[in-house]
């Protein structure tokens, strides 16, 4: 079984986000970038399936500028076998990314596509579902448990009311939630080894995909700040404030 994992290079989740003063975008100059945390979970799941002997090959793919090769190298250091960079400008919309990923999945004849549920920059939560729709594959989003058996994936999903388990036939798309696994760290020898693993660069034109978008960003503004509050000295003072000042407790 071949697994395709998509990984996105995003602002590190610990970085304090700043909006550019001209309100056009978030300022990413000299900011630490990392693999999207949900993609780390996706890579980890694929590696575990390989370690269990269920997967035979793990291919990682990233869509973006040359800098996302760094993210692909990280995935290779974690244990992926081979990487593909689809060379594009940054800032494609999810539909464009999904079309590219769907085409790669088709070319690779991947049996399982594991993706993050959400990028922590765009907060879109849609690319995986779009890839599944474009390929007419079944999907299991927000996965917290994946069991592969007899050409099917039995997936437990984190939903608003609790947990749901679905059984989907392969090929399929799974998107990861936080509780699926705890990603490992890459060891130094593996980071060295990863430098020699194959990394192929292709273009949207190679894939015959047009990534044009009808969505434009008009402005990016900082959020309204909450006015700072006060510290109270005791529970009695807190209850008094809630009753008589904020009037949210009767």
């Amino acid at each position: 079984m071949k697994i395709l994992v998509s990984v996105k290079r995003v602002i590190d989740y610990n970085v304090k986000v700043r909006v550019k003063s001209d309100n056009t975008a978030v300022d990413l100059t000299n900011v630490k970038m990392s693999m999207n945390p949900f993609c780390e979970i996706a890579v980890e799941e694929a590696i575990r399936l390989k370690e269990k002997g269920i997967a035979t090959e793990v291919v990682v793919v990233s869509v973006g500028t040359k800098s996302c090769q760094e993210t692909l190298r990280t995935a290779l250091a974690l244990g992926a076998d081979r990487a593909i960079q689809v060379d594009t400008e940054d800032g494609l919309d999810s539909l464009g990314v999904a079309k590219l990923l769907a085409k790669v999945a088709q070319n690779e004849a991947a049996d399982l596509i594991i993706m993050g549920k959400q990028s922590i920059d765009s907060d879109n939560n849609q690319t995986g579902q779009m890839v599944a729709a474009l390929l007419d594959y079944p999907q299991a989003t927000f996965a917290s448990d994946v069991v592969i058996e007899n050409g099917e994936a039995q997936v437990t999903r984190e939903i608003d009311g609790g947990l749901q388990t679905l059984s989907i036939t392969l090929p399929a798309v799974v998107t990861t939630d936080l509780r699926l696994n705890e990603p490992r760290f890459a060891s130094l020898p593996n980071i060295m080894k990863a430098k020699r693993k194959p990394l192929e660069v292709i273009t949207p034109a190679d894939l015959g995909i047009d990534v044009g978008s009808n969505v434009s960003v008009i402005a990016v503004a900082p959020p309204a700040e909450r006015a700072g509050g006060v510290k109270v000295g005791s529970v009695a003072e807190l209850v008094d404030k809630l009753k008589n000042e904020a009037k949210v407790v009767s």
Partner: protein
Amino acid sequence: MSILILAEHDNKSLKPATLNTVTAATQIDADVHVLVVGFECQAVADAACNIAGVSKVLMADNAVYEHQLAENVSKLIVDVASGYSHILAPATTTGKNTLPRVAALLNVAQLSDVIKVESADTFVRPIYAGNAIATVKSTDSVKVITVRITGFDAAASEGGSAECEAVTQVIESDRSRFVKEQLAVSDRPELTSASVIVSGGRGMGNGENFALLEGVADKLGAAIGASRAAVDAGFVPNDFQVGQTGKTVAPDLYIAVGISGAIQHLAGMKGSKVIVAINKDEEAPIFQVADYGLVADLFDAVPELESSL
């Protein structure tokens, strides 16, 4: 042009998230239709007909739709979607699961988690865990949108008198099968529609200690929430998680207990009207957004709070 909304429901009752989505829709255009996809879901359709501002309800009632699987529901929506300028769903796990498939099948983009309508083609949505607010314009022929429910007031659940029309297409989903569900049963209000929420973090120490929060929640008629750390540690189930990648809430009162206030947590609760933080670390970032901060050990403060309410 008309707007189609995918109703949020569990086959028995219409979920309040639908009402907020109706408000978002009426800010785009006046002709709002609601699509109910489910099984034995007549009561849901009846409730949708009563929503003020809804002019028509479409109901697809068939066993194949019982679990609202994304594969067939998205195809059904595309089937009935011609003529609609906008397709909306609340940004719940159901909406997020299904609507991107609809967008891809229609070859259009999706705008996720919209919090404000500027015009029929321009919308506002948070990005980067709410640390930036983007205004985006779409020239797609159909706008596919998920609506963040805390961005819009609920429409009145009574006062409408829409006609209900049956949708008879039966689309099977042969490659995806429902196996089972473990849904939390609770007498408490639902997290996303509660007016008071008491949330616990890693500082609670273990799951048993959440009983302390329940005591307070009982007195306030509150829902219980949690940080990711509390969920990851197994103190409470996953559906308690508030934050960037959990639920977004905006109650009148949010009480954060033993929660440090990471940006990913703040993203889900910063819109609350009044925020209270109880934390023993006076440097905890949660105090920067709290209207009332109490620096104290929660094991002293929470029982005292319960008894003084």
